[in-house]
């Protein structure tokens, strides 16, 4: 029976009871409890089922290394699967449920796997389910998926807040135990800016539990003195409930702060992810106790000795009525002594060492506890709870000769330093044979941007397990680090703390030593993933010799605890199976995060409105308020069309086009890029950037220009206006505003840095509006102030002036084939100007039109669109744009590339118009087929559609496309198969479908 003791518990407040639910059962605990301690206080030892065999699982540990006690926490939008009960602080109304079973925790059908365990060894699925082929998809895999997985999938959107925080410190200390606190205190007086973080709510780590006194103080007094001394330093920041999640290159460290998980009602952000740059990092992350590998060591009630002690001291809990201790080192004797002190019976201490323990063992014996040296647990009785053990000689095959009743086993197989953070960024480890642990190799620390070490492990994280050595190492390690970061501290002599003599640990990787295969099939290494000793042995036998192979083949260490308890034990079994030494087999690579962190915290505040920036033109809100259907274009949203009432998008587009072509439409063209280029060498520069000659453009005139990449492909187009002697205004596509600006800066800064040219992106300085249609001029004349007559402002000319009360620059350019003006006004005047155009345009039934109408109208005119006619593989020559490529220039970007053999190949596909014989609309992206198949058996093709629309103007489908030798094949009919197998026949025509002589735009 696991229960609350009548008194004690450093962390809990017995005056503050808290109610919670587990699997629908109403239970209570105290403030300060974790969910695990509260469950144990209610004798809820069985908390879940294992991954593969669905075996009953109990709480093993007391911290983040817990492999078993994973629960579904909370409900609805706050539901969270796989939460560790051991790190979940109890709050009023907490609701938890166990996982991975059906129909109930106590009776789980999935346990059938357990009885088949012998047929399901490591990697069984690679050898089975091969035939018949369809069965994998339809039968085996669905079954395996259903029985795998752990927690339930959440069903609702998470509404909690998350945020990020950027911080910069000289020194970050991870771990608020005795090493971390002492290191911080040592460093504090140097004046360095220091952050110390602790993943639990409490400072002090294990020392509170391991020592009743430290020096002249109780351990609690000692810790609180250190904490209050540290708090006096303004250069020291202390954060608890914050885990060091990962160390990355150049001193980057992630801190995962859980702000609200311990509260019933969230108040502010749930998690805050600190993205810290540290000059130096100290990992004082302690160490984790290892289980012992003995038969049936996975039955609920088998726990780590340190955890049993934690529950007794910190939470006032006896994890059993009779607790047997099983150890290979002295530390577990502390558990026995502690239990004895709080009145819990310890029927036996089984010590695997023939020589037994040191001073602590003597104390235990003096307390009357039975101690057996050189023994092993050969069997555990019980299914869902430990009922008894039998013991035998350690150096034996495991015939138990004595049965001892107990309901809990406190085991200790030694300690593993927490080296994760030290290793994340390349820190190397070395094997300490005597203590049987991997510890940081101080000669191969992770290095930073300057090539110098930046992570140092101290204390038990550095492989020191005795308190006086821990303190000495914390201080010395810290002094080294402080010096490395340029701080200075006084090197006072250091008062060592007395510690009782400890006999050394004796590594035992399997107990009893000569356990036979039957027993080895019941010794668990990885409790969650059900990996046993015989699985690792099988992997080794089959040639999975690398630790990475074994891990992947057996799934050892791949569970949610990432092998914190199982890795070293598994490695030892692998190395003995291979007959190699442990360091020769090596460890797996440690990667962030140390323990799992919420995806929400990684995303931070970037969700919903803040997911990605939406760029807005000055008229953006007007469009939304007037029913526009918006389409994302890069980071902008542009109106696709403005549907009225029940109108479909297609009908709206038709209406917009008809109205524009017959009278007047206006377009928000503000997103088009506007780059101002000025300087004595600006003309020369633009001649290199554009395929055309821009230096000869006359002031007041506009020219359509093309830009290519050095690889020859067309990347952007737009109208360039000559502003003055040294200044050009280059219009780009919407997407090109930033990329072409960057392109220009790149060439100016990195190739032609002696050319005198400045570029400024003025895209957002202006609202730009297209006024389009036969009545466009009338509308501008109505507003007045600028002479926009044909004589005063010819086609492809621009002028400045006060149009009404607006500071306007008017470009007489057309992308629709109609009489058209593009008018730029300062952005802050944009909305008013738009409003005035709408108001004054009423007599012409003015309509705003969207991007789709724009696309259709330009296609009717045969104008190309970057991104439609081009796709990164098209050169201007493919689009018959040779007229826009200057023959007079020696060079422009992309010119040489366009001379390569494939670029000048006469069989390239070139731009044509396509008219379907039946008037229908060709499918987007359809290909024209040719005779036969290619060498890979694919249908041969001879062209493809680049743009295809229903033209409301021509009342039929029109398309542009690239066709092999297309321009020479006018009138020829080619075939476009549809996906359904039917074929559409289309005639090759000119791409200009509407007003080929330009009579409309030149009026």
């Amino acid at each position, binding site marked *: 029976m696991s229960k609350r003791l009548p008194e004690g518990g450093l962390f809990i407040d017995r005056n503050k009871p808290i109610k919670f639910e587990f699997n629908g059962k109403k239970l209570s605990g105290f403030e300060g409890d974790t969910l695990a301690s509260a469950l144990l206080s209610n004798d809820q030892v069985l908390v879940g089922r294992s991954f593969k065999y669905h075996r009953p699982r109990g709480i093993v540990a007391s911290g983040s290394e817990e492999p078993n006690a994973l629960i579904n926490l909370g409900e609805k939008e706050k539901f969270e699967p796989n939460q560790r009960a051991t790190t979940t602080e109890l709050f009023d109304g907490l609701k938890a449920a166990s996982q991975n079973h059906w129909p109930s925790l106590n009776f789980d059908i999935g346990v059938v796997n357990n009885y088949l365990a012998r047929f399901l060894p490591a990697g069984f699925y690679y050898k089975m389910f091969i035939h018949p082929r369809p069965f994998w998809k339809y039968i085996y895999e669905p079954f395996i998926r259903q029985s795998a997985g752990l927690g339930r999938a959440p069903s609702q959107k998470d509404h909690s807040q998350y945020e990020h925080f950027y911080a910069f410190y000289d020194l970050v200390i991870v771990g608020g135990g005795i090493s971390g606190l002492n290191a911080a205190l040592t460093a504090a007086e140097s004046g360095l800016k220091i952050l110390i973080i602790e993943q639990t709510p409490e400072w002090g780590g294990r020392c509170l539990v391991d020592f009743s006194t430290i020096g002249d103080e109780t351990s609690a007094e000692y810790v609180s003195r250190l904490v209050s001394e540290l708090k006096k330093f303004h250069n020291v920041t202390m954060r608890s409930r914050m885990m060091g999640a990962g160390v990355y*290159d150049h001193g*980057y460290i992630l801190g995962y702060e859980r702000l609200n998980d311990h509260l019933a009602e969230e108040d502010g952000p749930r998690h805050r992810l600190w993205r810290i740059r540290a000059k130096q990092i100290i990992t004082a992350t302690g160490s984790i106790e290892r289980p012992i590998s003995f038969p049936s060591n996975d039955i609920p009630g088998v726990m780590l000795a340190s955890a049993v002690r934690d529950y007794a001291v910190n939470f006032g809990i006896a994890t059993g009525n009779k607790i047997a201790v099983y150890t290979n080192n002295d530390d577990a004797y502390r558990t026995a002594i502690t239990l004895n002190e709080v009145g819990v019976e310890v029927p036996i201490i089984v010590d695997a060492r023939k020589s037994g323990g040191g001073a602590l063992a003597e104390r235990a014996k003096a307390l009357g506890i039975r101690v057996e040296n050189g023994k092993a647990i050969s069997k555990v009785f019980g299914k869902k709870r430990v009922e008894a053990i039998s013991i035998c000689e350690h150096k034996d095959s495991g015939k138990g000769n004595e049965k001892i009743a107990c309901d809990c086993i406190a085991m200790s197989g030694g300690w593993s330093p927490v080296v994760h953070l030290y290793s994340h960024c390349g820190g190397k480890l070395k094997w300490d044979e005597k203590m049987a642990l991997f510890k940081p190799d101080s000669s191969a620390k992770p290095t*930073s941007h300057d*090539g110098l070490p930046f992570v140092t492990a101290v204390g038990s994280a550095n492989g020191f397990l005795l308190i006086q050595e821990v303190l000495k190492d914390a201080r010395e390690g810290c002094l080294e680090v402080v010096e490395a970061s340029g701080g200075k501290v006084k090197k006072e002599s250091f008062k060592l703390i007395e510690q009782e003599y400890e006999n050394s640990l004796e590594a035992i990787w399997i107990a009893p030593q000569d356990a036979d295969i039957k027993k080895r099939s019941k010794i668990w290494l990885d409790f969650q993933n059900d990996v046993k000793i015989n699985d690792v042995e099988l992997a080794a036998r089959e040639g999975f010799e690398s630790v990475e192979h074994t891990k992947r083949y057996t799934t050892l260490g791949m569970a949610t605890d990432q092998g914190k308890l199982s890795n070293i034990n598994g490695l030892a079994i692998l190395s003995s199976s291979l007959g190699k030494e442990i360091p020769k087999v090596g460890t797996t690579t440690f990667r962030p995060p140390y323990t799992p962190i919420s995806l929400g915290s990684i995303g931070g505040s970037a969700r919903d409105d803040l997911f990605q920036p939406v760029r807005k033109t000055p008229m953006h809100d007007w469009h939304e308020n007037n029913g526009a259907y918006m389409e994302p274009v890069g980071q902008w949203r542009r109106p696709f069309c403005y549907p009225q009432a029940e109108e479909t998008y297609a009908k709206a587009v038709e209406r917009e086009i008809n109205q524009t072509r017959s009278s007047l439409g206006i377009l928000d063209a503000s997103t088009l890029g506007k780059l101002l280029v000025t300087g004595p060498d600006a003309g020369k520069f633009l001649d290199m950037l554009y395929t055309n000659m821009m230096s000869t453009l006359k002031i007041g005139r506009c020219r359509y220009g093309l830009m290519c990449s*050095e690889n020859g492909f067309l990347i952007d187009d737009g109208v360039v206006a000559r502003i003055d002697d040294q200044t050009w205004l280059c219009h780009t596509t919407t997407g090109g505003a930033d990329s072409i600006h960057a392109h220009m800066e*790149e060439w100016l800064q990195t190739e032609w*840095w002696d050319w005198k040219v400045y570029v400024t992106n003025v895209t957002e300085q202006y609202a730009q509006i297209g006024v389009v249609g036969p009545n466009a001029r009338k509308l501008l004349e109505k507003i007045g102030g600028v002479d926009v007559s044909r004589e005063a402002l010819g086609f492809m000319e621009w002028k400045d002036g006060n149009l009404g009360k607006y500071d306007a620059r008017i470009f007489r350019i057309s992308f629709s084939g109609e009489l058209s003006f593009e008018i730029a006004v300062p952005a802050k005047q944009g909305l008013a100007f738009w409003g005035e155009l709408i108001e004054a345009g009423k007599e012409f039934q003015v309509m705003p039109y969207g991007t789709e109408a724009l696309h259709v109208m330009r296609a009717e005119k045969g104008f190309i669109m970057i991104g439609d006619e081009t796709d990164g593989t098209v050169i201007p020559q493919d689009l018959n744009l040779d007229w826009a490529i200057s023959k007079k220039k020696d060079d422009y970007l992309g010119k*040489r*590339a366009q001379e*390569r053999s494939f670029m000048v190949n006469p069989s390239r596909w070139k731009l044509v118009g396509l008219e379907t014989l039946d008037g229908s609309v060709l499918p987007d992206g359809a290909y024209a087929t040719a005779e036969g198949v290619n060498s890979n058996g694919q249908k041969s093709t001879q062209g493809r559609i680049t743009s295809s629309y229903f033209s409301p103007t021509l009342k039929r489908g029109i398309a542009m496309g690239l066709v092999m030798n297309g321009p020479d094949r006018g009138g020829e009919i080619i075939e476009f198969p549809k996906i359904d197998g039917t074929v559409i026949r289309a005639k090759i025509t000119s791409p200009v479908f509407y007003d080929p002589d330009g009579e409309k735009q030149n009026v």
Partner: protein
Amino acid sequence: MLVFKCPYCGIEADETELSPGGEAHLKRFGPGSSDEELEGYLFNRENPKGVHFERWRHVYGCGKWFHAARCTATLEVFGTYSAQTFGPPKEIIDIIKSKRPGWKWRNLG
């Protein structure tokens, strides 16, 4: 998560304030060059496992391109320098030589 000191504004810039621009000190080959020269210029890359000269732009800062010498195997940064050069300056080469004895690059080393 890299940090580079921008040689133009002196800021210790975070990787997220920068944009990478690939190998440095490529010679442009335009009209008149051979197919091989053009291919080398556009595509062939040193791609060393070790010391690398590369281009970065301080895009969220002063907007300037700069050069960096960095080890691609350890991510150590030997230094940053002006974009307006045809090769790494002597002080950068000296640092690299002292830290990576035996290092070679094109006709250096």
